[in-house]
């Protein structure tokens, strides 16, 4: 299993400078990854200077751990049109599915990417689609191909065309320290800076429509919560009370923000109606109450509290105030995030003094460690619930890594400089389709 995947990556190495920087580890691996061949796409006349989408698609599918792409040099034929498909060329290789496609430039200067997905055993075309956009959107279109193929073959919506946000810190512990809030594709490509500051930035989070973000900034020499429109860069200070202003989290309908204020003497959870800016206090405990996040139905918040002496995760129903403790295993469970199914949560869990990302089955009250490195933190779940991104350390440097929700597949995102931390996986984003 491991060898097969590594072989697949060796083949992609040369054509994918970005992908080459990502290390993929497969712990146990899926028992039966689907063997898929993504054939280099045909390149139409006038198409120049753009990457071949096949490398991007192949790499996306491989990162899910559910697919084992066939190296290009093993392919017996390189079809780019349905009429050129010879199924026996793929059967002899044991390939189950084949993706072919073309890129074409139209008269208006737009680039189109079309693909066809085939089932080799059934000798059948399963789907095809064509995306059109300016050539600068090549990667977006390639990720949409990945999403479509992934969904067709697994039944789960693909999340390859989503984005991630993270904080990049440079020169920590020196007067030159600098913090950047970055946004990139889910595979780490095309990073761009949303905010740069000499003061800390943390807790960046997405609105459910993916158009706005909220974060905590120390640019006023104290924490305040800022709302920023991604497209325009317009920023609004949401709260700037004395004490903590932290841990913003948008409700699933995007109308309310959960947050933490310590203006009453100790950190308490509040909700803010984003239209009226009206605040409502949710917790009343002489303890640390922080890290709120919403249950998928939007009716409850889960949060961290040390009201029992050590940090544990609690749930409060907003309508009734009814509060229950969710975690009992271990003496440090924090920053809980519920999976889209509402039946599991991921959190930072301390075991034998080491911090891991753990998955908790709420029904069975069982906690399973998903990561085995130390100082793992800030888990953020992909919108389709299959993977989560988290922060960890590699030789003393903060990096980002991704683990599948069953713990079997792990990979690290490349980072060239500084400490990378606090990843936030975007919701599904609506992109232009051709």
């Amino acid at each position, binding site marked *: 299993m491991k060898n097969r995947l590594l072989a697949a990556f060796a083949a992609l190495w040369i054509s994918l400078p970005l992908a080459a920087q990502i290390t993929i580890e497969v712990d146990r691996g899926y028992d039966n990854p689907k063997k898929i061949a993504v054939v280099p796409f045909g390149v139409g006349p006038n198409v120049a200077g753009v990457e071949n989408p096949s490398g991007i698609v192949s790499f996306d599918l491989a990162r899910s751990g559910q697919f084992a792409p066939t190296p290009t040099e093993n392919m017996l034929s390189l079809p780019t049109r349905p009429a050129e498909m010879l199924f026996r060329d793929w059967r002899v290789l044991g390939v189950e599915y084949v993706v072919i496609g073309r890129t074409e430039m139209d008269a208006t200067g737009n680039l189109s990417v079309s693909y066809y997905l085939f089932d080799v055993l059934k000798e059948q075309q399963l789907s095809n689609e064509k995306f059109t956009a300016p050539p600068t959107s090549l990667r977006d279109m390639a990720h949409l191909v990945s999403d479509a193929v992934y969904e067709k073959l697994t039944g789960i919506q693909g999340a390859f065309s989503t984005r991630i946000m993270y904080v990049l810190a440079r020169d*920590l512990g020196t007067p030159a320290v600098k913090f950047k809030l970055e946004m990139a594709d889910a595979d780490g490509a095309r990073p761009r800076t949303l905010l740069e500051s000499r003061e800390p930035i943390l807790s960046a989070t997405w609105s459910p429509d993916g158009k706005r973000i909220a974060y905590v900034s120390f640019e006023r020499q104290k924490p305040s919560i800022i709302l920023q429109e991604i497209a325009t860069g317009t920023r609004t200070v949401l709260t700037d009370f004395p004490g903590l202003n932290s841990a913003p989290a948008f409700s699933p309908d995007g109308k309310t923000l959960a947050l933490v204020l310590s203006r009453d003497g100790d950190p308490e959870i509040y909700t803010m109606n984003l239209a009226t800016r009206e605040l409502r206090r949710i917790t009343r405990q002489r303890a640390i109450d922080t890290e709120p996040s919403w249950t998928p139905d939007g009716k409850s918040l889960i949060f961290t509290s040390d009201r029992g002496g050590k940090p544990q995760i609690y749930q409060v129903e907003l309508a009734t105030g009814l509060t229950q403790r969710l975690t009992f295993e271990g003496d440090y469970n*924090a920053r809980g995030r519920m999976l889209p199914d509402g039946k599991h949560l991921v959190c930072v869990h301390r075991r034998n003094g080491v911090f891991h990302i753990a998955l908790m089955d709420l029904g069975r009250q069982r906690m399973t460690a998903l990561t085995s490195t130390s100082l793992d933190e800030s888990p953020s779940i992909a919108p389709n619930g299959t993977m989560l991104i988290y922060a960890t350390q590699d030789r003393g440097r903060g990096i980002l890594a991704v683990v599948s929700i069953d713990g079997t597949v792990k990979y690290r995102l490349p980072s060239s400089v500084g400490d990378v931390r606090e990843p936030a996986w975007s919701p599904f984003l609506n992109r232009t389709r051709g």
Partner: protein
Amino acid sequence: MQRNWLRNLSVVAFAALVLAGCSSTGKKAAQTGPLPGDEQPEVTAPGQSDSEISRVDAEGNPINPQTGMPLSRVFYFDYDKAMLQPDSLAVLELHAVFLKNNSDRRVVIDGFTDERGTREYNLALGERRAESVATFLVSQGVRRSQIDVVSYGEERPADPGHSEAAWAKNRRAELVYR
């Protein structure tokens, strides 16, 4: 009046509590009997006059009259704890005297944690550490309006390393005079 008396009593009780079990300096301070409250009684550090304690360095930070050196402005904490360490108290008492003698001066107490644990929880823990210092200063008669508290959690380590030694340096509260 009744309420003030009660409040003073509880502040004294707190001061006695933090001072209990600390070094010789602590005992002396306990004898002088800090009685904070509306009257703002003048508490003099043992052996020093008010004028001496008000000396500042070029940056406006108080100078320790005994040593002629700037008063230490960094105080360390145990892992996961926000309680003041006994050896912090003697220096904090001198800061309290300085602030009472210079009622126009303000101090910001920055709270910090090491990198272990989640960032938002650490932000709260850093605030709790800074508040411990603020509460002690107030128990020594400093007006709360002279004090601001800001927590940076784990975001501004003094030492960016990942060893026990680095973590010990990062679990701290810093006094920044304005």
